[in-house]
């Protein structure tokens, strides 16, 4: 436009200089007029254009301003978003809330360029606040100081109102004026609120020394940041909750499996209080056990964290807080004893006792099992209050329930142990009694080589045996087995022994096996009306001189007989077991069998513990093992044979535990020699005795015992001549004879001298004359019997008293 103006001025000057005429002037004027008009028009247009340009410029300026404003908003938004993204990224990258909070306060502090930035999460774990603070230079504070922020009035204002607190100048603000000791000028505090409007804490900014006006943008930015922080806290709390739930579940499982795995109640409870105390991060955990007899409570087990004083295991400790609880309350919890209204129910002494424990928070959960209250599982939180959460209480109730099971289990085990001890003691006494009962019949020192091996399965046994000399050369053996085992079987055994003794003393039964068993069965049957016990038995009478055995069998395993090296089962025709039938039942009668036995023949009598033994895999061992074992041990000494058999059984059963009592009785027949003396026998008595002495000497009779043996035989023989033969002679029995039989076994000689006389009451006679020192020194007679007792190790008679048995051991 400036270029066009200069061109116009140049034209006007040229026209004025070159034209003088009027026409020219008019022309020029007209031209000028036209030019002026044109110029005016142009100017008008230009003015209009200028106006438009100005309008355009203003509009442009407006647009530019708007754009700038938009750009600023966008920039601010982007900054906020960037900050928020940063925070969100941090939150997502970790579950460690403390770490997240620290980096957040650092980030925010730097961003806002403040002197301090902090976050407070109250009661984050138990009663402890989580506080993290960023501070610059001189404004850094000790953790102990800023940890107390939650106690400040500003904090309470925010947490109560849920609204931000904006203090641009603390000097003038009503909340802070005159209250702040430090040079803190501006505060911005925003609540951290979860999605469910639950307050989780606060975030604050501090500007120190220099006053600062917080902008809307800063406020909104801090509020925006509060969202992710609250989320992080919530996430962390959920994570910790899950973690804690998992760990408590694990602890409960451990507790349960420990209870199942051990019966040691002390170990269970000691570990339980320690682990529960640690899991709940309580200051103390202990178990108050109630003594049911005295209803007193004492601490059975206790755990306390470091520096917390133990109340004292074993100490009497009544649960005072129980008094403030309502009846049938599931648990007693006190969050803060200083604020507990129910304490009015306690007297001063009780409150003082509670204070003494230094506990602020209390939790007591009853330990019950099947409605029995055993005690309380108690927790103390010392010095600080604590809100026991429902989850915690529920967890402790589960644990208390397990503890109840454990205590009940322990009580039951205790009762069982006591019962077992008592039973064991009684069984031992029963066994001793049984042993005493059986002892008299267990003496194998008879005129017959007998060896016994007896292995009871229990303390008290159902197997029994009895050996009795009916006459010097006649030995009766009873072996039996009562059905069942243990005390009941033992009692029946005792009863049988009592009955058996009576039957053995009665010659009408003792000399007749079939009558003996019938009478015994009848007696048991009579007493056994209301039970299902029975017994098997074998009764045999061994006559050494006649070389035979008379026997009857009442459902008992038939003995084995070893003749000339051949082993077989005795065909003794077993009858029904004892106690099933009485004499009135035809079935209850037994048959008597007679078997000839030669010198060296053996008989092995046993109970079913030998023939009904199982191997380890549960299969019964075939009975043939016994025959084979006896065959293999046919040359074993008789006194070793029973144990050899038991040893063999252990081998064939592959050391399987015994299924039953094991009883083996082995007998060996001896070779006997007999001399008969008639009326003239006294004339050759020396000669015959000499032969006996030679026989004994050939079997090892020591020289110094020869005179004693001779004296004994002389005394016994003259007694028979004097009292038996003379009497028979006077009765005109010309065939009357005195019979002397003897047999020599290892380290012993035994003999019987039988006369045809009426016998004598030896039981009464020997009561006063069994000791030579008791004989009157001035008496001319009466030394014969005492001398026999002095010389022989055993002197016996038959019941009639006309047969004497003498045994000398060396």
């Amino acid at each position, binding site marked *: 436009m400036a270029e066009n103006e200069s061109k116009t001025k140049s034209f006007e000057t040229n026209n004025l200089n070159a034209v003088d005429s009027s026409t020219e002037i008019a022309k020029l004027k007209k031209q000028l007029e036209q030019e002026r008009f044109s110029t005016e028009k142009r100017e008008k247009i230009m003015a209009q254009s200028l106006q438009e340009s100005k309008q355009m410029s203003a509009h442009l300026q407006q647009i530019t301003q708007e754009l700038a404003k938009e750009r600023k908003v966008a920039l601010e938004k982007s900054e906020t978003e960037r900050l928020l993204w940063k925070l969100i990224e941090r939150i997502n990258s970790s579950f460690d809330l403390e770490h997240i909070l620290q980096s957040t306060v650092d980030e925010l502090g730097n961003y806002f360029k403040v002197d301090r930035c902090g976050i407070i999460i109250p009661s984050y774990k138990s009663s402890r606040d989580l506080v993290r603070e960023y501070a610059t230079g001189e404004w850094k504070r000790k953790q102990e100081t800023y940890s107390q922020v939650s106690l400040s009035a500003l904090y309470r204002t925010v947490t109560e109102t849920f609204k931000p607190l904006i203090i641009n100048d603390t000097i003038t603000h009503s909340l802070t004026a005159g209250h702040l000791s430090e040079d803190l000028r501006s505060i911005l505090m925003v609540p951290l609120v979860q999605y469910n409007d639950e307050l989780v804490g606060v975030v604050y900014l501090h500007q120190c020394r220099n006053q600062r006006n917080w902008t809307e943008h800063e406020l909104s930015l801090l509020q925006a940041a509060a969202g992710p922080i609250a989320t992080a806290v919530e996430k962390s709390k959920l994570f910790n909750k899950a973690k804690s739930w998992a760990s408590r579940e694990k602890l409960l499982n451990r507790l349960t499996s420990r209870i199942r795995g051990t019966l040691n109640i002390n170990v269970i409870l000691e570990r339980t209080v320690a682990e529960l105390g640690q899991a709940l991060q309580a200051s103390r955990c202990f178990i108050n056990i109630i003594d049911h007899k005295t209803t007193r409570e004492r601490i059975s087990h206790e755990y306390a964290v470091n520096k917390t004083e133990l109340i004292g295991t074993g100490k009497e400790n009544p649960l005072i807080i129980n008094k403030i609880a309502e009846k049938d309350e599931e648990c007693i919890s006190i969050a803060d004893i200083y604020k507990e209204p129910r304490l009015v129910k306690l007297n001063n002494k009780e409150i003082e006792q509670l204070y003494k424990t230094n506990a602020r928070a209390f939790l007591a959960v009853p330990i019950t099992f099947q409605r029995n209250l055993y005690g309380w599982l108690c927790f103390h939180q010392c010095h600080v209050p604590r809100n026991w959460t429902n989850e915690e209480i529920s967890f402790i109730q589960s644990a208390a329930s397990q503890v109840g099971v454990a205590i009940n289990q322990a009580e039951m085990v205790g009762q069982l142990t006591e019962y077992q001890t008592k039973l064991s003691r009684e069984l031992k006494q029963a066994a001793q009694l049984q042993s005493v009962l059986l002892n008299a019949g267990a003496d194998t020192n008879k005129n017959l080589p007998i060896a016994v091996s007896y292995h009871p399965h229990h303390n008290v046994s159902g197997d029994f045996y009895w050996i009795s000399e009916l006459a010097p050369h006649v030995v009766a053996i009873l072996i039996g087995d009562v059905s069942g085992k243990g005390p009941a079987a033992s009692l029946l055994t005792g009863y049988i022994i009592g009955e058996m003794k009576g039957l053995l003393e009665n010659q009408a039964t003792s000399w007749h096996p079939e009558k003996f068993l019938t009478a015994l069965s009848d007696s048991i049957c009579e007493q056994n009306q209301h039970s299902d016990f029975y017994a098997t038995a074998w009764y045999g009478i061994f006559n050494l001189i006649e070389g035979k055995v008379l026997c009857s069998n009442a459902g008992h395993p038939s003995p084995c007989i070893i003749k000339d090296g051949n082993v077989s089962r005795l065909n003794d025709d077993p009858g029904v077991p004892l106690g099933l039938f009485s004499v009135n039942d035809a079935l209850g009668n037994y048959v008597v069998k007679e078997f000839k036995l030669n010198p060296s023949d053996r008989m092995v009598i046993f109970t079913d513990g030998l023939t009904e033994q199982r191997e380890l895999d549960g299969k019964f061992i075939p009975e043939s093992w016994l025959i084979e074992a006896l065959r293999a041990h046919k040359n074993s000494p008789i006194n070793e044979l029973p144990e050899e058999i038991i040893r063999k059984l252990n081998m064939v059963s592959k050391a399987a535990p015994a299924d039953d009592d094991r009883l083996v009785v082995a007998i060996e027949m001896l070779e006997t020699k007999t001399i008969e003396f008639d009326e003239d026998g*006294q004339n050759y008595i*020396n000669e015959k005795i000499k032969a006996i002495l030679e026989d004994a000497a050939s079997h090892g009779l020591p020289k110094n015992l020869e*005179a004693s043996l*001779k*004296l004994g035989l*002389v*005394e016994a023989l*003259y007694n028979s*001549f*004097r009292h038996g033969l003379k009497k028979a002679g006077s009765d005109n029995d010309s065939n009357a004879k005195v019979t002397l039989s003897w047999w020599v076994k290892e380290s012993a000689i035994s003999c019987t001298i039988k006369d045809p006389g009426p016998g004598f009451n030896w039981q009464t006679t020997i009561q006063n004359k069994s000791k*030579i*020192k008791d*004989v009157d*020194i*001035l*008496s*001319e*007679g009466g*030394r*014969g019997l005492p*001398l026999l007792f*002095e010389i022989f190790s055993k002197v016996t008679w038959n019941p009639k008293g006309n047969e004497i048995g003498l045994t000398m051991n060396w």
Partner: protein
Amino acid sequence: MKLDVQDNDDRLFVKIGGQLLYSEADHFKEEVLPKIGQHSTVTVDCGDLQFIDSAGTGAIVRLWKECRMVGAELELIRVIPEVQKLLHLTRLHQLAKVSGIDDTA
């Protein structure tokens, strides 16, 4: 049993051999007891006595009783150990003076 009874002034000397058993006891008493008389000492030489039983000891007791009645002293000499053992067992050594076969040798 062998029995020899000799009367030497105030001493009755009885020598016994073999065995003094029930069957010989009566014979011993019949032979010896009537001869005790007024002797102050009755000596039984048991050097050859090989054996004695309770009836034999009974005969000795009877002999001691007879001696005591007349105030005589009974002594059993040269008693062999086996017999001596029985005499001790029956405490007859408390009645009569008993000496062993070795003591008199």
